[in-house]
């Protein structure tokens, strides 16, 4: 559905690249997550693929449309949710969606049920300028679903939302994905990437460091740990053992055989830990 080959981009039209040699593809119904710290180039990539930024160098095909000369009708099949909410403050939630749906040539979803889906049903007739940040964000998010897109671009869909609402949004995305929507998602939240995406791309300083499924990444880079709580000489002790290291494995066996085990958990490395191992950078930075 999306093919990107050797994409380069410089805002200043010089050697200062925000994207360098970015290549990836997303097949139909797949969700790819761009995981990277602030300034990595996630939004820049989305901007180019949605025609908001000019394609400077490289090739990009979205839904069969060549991005170097985008056709307007392409947008009937695409949904875009923005990192920064951008709705008309002077219009109500409902009016925002009602006017937006008129811009498409394809059948559109019912704005009321969409608003209900993200918990905005009570403020349907309230002007967006009176909304909180999270409410505006949800309005921006549902607006991207109006045309029931088969390719969905989501720039930081859960950032800045409280956990309950973020959970709701994740559920909606999962539901759409189950329905066959192809998803390009950017985030610096590893849980979102882990939970939603079939594959994640680690991006740092405009370069993709690797792309793989969360599961493969964990198998390949993660060290599985076992956390044990046990009673030793009458007091509660705690220890972690890596299953990769033979010495530690034996130490764990020793504890199991000789001590009284209180609790025992296996722990997988998080995507964040893997990210740090692979890129040498922190996601939060």
């Amino acid at each position, binding site marked *: 559905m999306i093919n990107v080959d050797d994409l380069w981009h410089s805002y200043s039209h010089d050697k200062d690249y925000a994207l360098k040699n970015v290549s990836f593809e997303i097949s139909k119904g797949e969700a790819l997550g761009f995981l990277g710290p602030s300034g990595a180039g996630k939004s820049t990539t989305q901007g180019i693929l*949605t*025609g*908001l*930024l*000019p394609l400077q160098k490289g090739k990009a095909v979205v839904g069969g449309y060549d991005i170097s000369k985008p056709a*307007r*009708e*392409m*947008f*009937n099949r*695409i949904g*875009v949710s*923005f990192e*920064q*909410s*951008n*709705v*008309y*403050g*002077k*219009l109500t939630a409902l*009016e925002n969606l009602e*006017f*937006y749906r*008129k*811009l*498409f*040539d394809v059948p559109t979803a019912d704005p009321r049920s969409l608003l209900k889906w993200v918990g905005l049903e009570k403020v349907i007739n309230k002007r967006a300028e009176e909304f909180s940040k999270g409410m505006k964000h949800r309005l*921006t998010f549902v*607006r991207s679903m109006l045309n029931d897109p088969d390719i969905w671009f989501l720039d930081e869909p859960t950032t800045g939302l409280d956990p309950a609402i973020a959970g709701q949004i994740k559920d909606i995305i999962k539901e759409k994905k189950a329905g066959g929507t192809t998803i390009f998602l950017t985030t610096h939240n590893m849980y979102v990437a882990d939970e939603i995406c079939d594959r994640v791309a680690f991006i740092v300083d405009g370069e993709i460091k690797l792309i793989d499924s969360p599961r493969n990444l964990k198998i390949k880079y993660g060290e599985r740990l076992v956390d044990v709580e046990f009673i030793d000489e009458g007091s509660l002790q705690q220890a972690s053992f890596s299953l990769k290291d033979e010495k530690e494995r034996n130490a764990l066996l020793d504890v199991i055989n000789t001590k009284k085990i209180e609790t025992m958990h296996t722990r997988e490395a998080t995507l964040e830990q893997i990210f740090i191992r692979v890129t040498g950078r922190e996601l939060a930075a």
Partner: protein
Amino acid sequence: MRLLYSFLKELRLSTRSYYFYLEIIMAIIIIVVLRYVVPENFESSSRLFAYVSPDLADSISTKITDTHTGENAENTLILLDSIDAVVAVMEEDRNSVGLTVTSFQGSETPGTEIEYRLIFQGYESERLRNIMQASVSMIFAPPAFTGTPPKAAAVETIGQRNEHLSDRNSVLPPVLLLNAAFMGLFIIAAFIFMDKEEGTIKAFAVTPSHIWEYLLGKMAVMLLAGMLSGLMTVLLVAGSSANYVLLILLLAVSNLFGSSLGLLVASFFDNMAQAMGTIFIIIYLMAMPAVSYYMPAFSPLPMRILPSYPLLFAFRETLLDDPDYAMVLANAAIFAVVSVILFLLANKRYKKIITI
């Protein structure tokens, strides 16, 4: 169809922001001021250029000079050497009136019987003409004037056409141009900057709609507001004396010209604060020809090449009883073409800037 929705959306947006009302409120203020504060005609203390033929008896010329510089000193009297000089000076000073006093040609006793002529510019009000005539005829009326009453009196104008506007109506063209046309320039730019700030222009860019639909929707709202305020003003100030067919046409093209220029200008800036200087300079320049409009003698080339110059005079025509159709239509056609060009340029710009 999408254009209609675009228009409806812009209309709703603009009626919820104060800019839209700015234009209407301005129009109301102007109407109130013109109707209740500005008199229909100003008391004009114009200069009177006179020529008194030397073959007249000294007593007569002294009389004229005395009378006119005495109680009736409202108009300054300046004596000149020839009729040609009077006309020449009048062509320079468009606020003046001319008077010639010569001996009556058919007289049997030359130098005692006189005839006088009043020369007007052509756009003086009826009232001013009457005042002048009355005051001049006073000079030759007994008992102040003891000679033979004038044998002949004539009134003529140096202007080609004898059309004139009342002072109140002659305020309208600059007002129409500024409020109905060039306020649109400022307001449409303000709306563009609001959209840029909210980022809604980006949201629009990822729909199958064309940017021209978005821009035209905005221009249509400006057109509506401009027509509304313009027609309201003329209807309540000039009433039935205007030619509404020409007026509507001219209001429409000048409004489109203003708003397409506003779109183009706004495309070069990110926010109002940055654009303010440029927009003010443009509106200020556009207002300049109003000086020439009121003082036709002062019409230097830089003034005449400003687009507002012909528009002002075209607006003036639409308020006359016998307007120059060809002149108004030619202006409308030219500005319609210019507007289309500006719009196409703006469309090109927005296609580009939306992706930056």
